């Protein structure tokens, strides 16, 4: 088999995909954001450290999902499936947090 056979028609044809250069640029952004995250361990950011980490995490998450997983370019149904799973996970955490709170509540 030739190693560089040009496919007659690829299965994902029709979707606009980024170029390798764009992927590398996204990876550079992700690397910088990770460096910022790690800097919170070495530098004292005070009260903004945790909100900053949450924002950086969300931005990295969206970059990977949007660009590398192609959610920006694919059918919105895939995004909905992902966000449904995430929403259920957050609801689960909220329910567990409330139950735990009541478990530790002082009794009268």
């Amino acid at each position, binding site marked *: 088999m030739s190693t560089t056979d040009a496919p007659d028609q*690829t*299965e994902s044809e029709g979707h606009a995909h980024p170029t*390798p250069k764009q992927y590398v640029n996204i990876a550079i952004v992700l690397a910088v954001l990770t460096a910022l995250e790690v800097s919170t361990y070495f530098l004292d950011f005070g009260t903004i450290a945790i909100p900053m980490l949450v924002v950086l*995490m969300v931005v990295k998450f969206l970059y990977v999902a949007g660009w590398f997983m192609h959610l920006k370019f694919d059918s919105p149904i895939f995004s909905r499936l*992902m966000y449904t799973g*995430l929403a259920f*996970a*957050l609801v*689960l955490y909220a329910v567990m947090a409330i139950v735990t709170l009541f478990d530790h509540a002082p009794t009268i």
Partner: protein
Amino acid sequence: MSTDVATTTLGIDHRKLGMWTFLGSEFLFFGAFVSAYLLYLDTTAGGPGVEIFDIPFTSISSFVLLMSSLTMVLAHHAHTKGDMRRMRMWILATAGQGAVFLGGQVFEFNVFFREGLELSTSPFASSFYVLTGFHGLHVFVGILLLSSLYVLSLTGKIKPNQDVKTEMIGLYWHFVDIIWVVIFTVVYLIPEIAVIG
């Protein structure tokens, strides 16, 4: 779209729809473990807590896993262009980075174990090992999938026009990466700052 692949009534490749449904459920799966970890964060039962984490070491392995997403997406891109040689090269690079990450996790678990953080030491220890252990298992499965893709491509069983197969494994790999983005912040960095300061 190749002729042997049925689309759903939504006009979407059924394999991709199936994969995204699976990944959606996986978010809930990991959400449950992250929730348990956060709720048991301060229940160390006198054993080691978050102060045991080696943030610089974990940062490096996190960076390696993050960059493996780049090589994975480049493998998929090469496959869409029919460049199977380059696709295989990126697949190997991705699997290699996954192996480095997994090696780091095994090393980290060994260190923690020797310092007294065992699976049954405390609710904190159990929730930490179950969460990060299941993630490691997902990375291991990802490496197996990547290796299969490499071999099948080498033997000609995966053809240049079948790039959705690489895309599917890529989706799984990026998911593993995206979960670690959350774990690295929520499990390692935030507790380290909140508890130790």
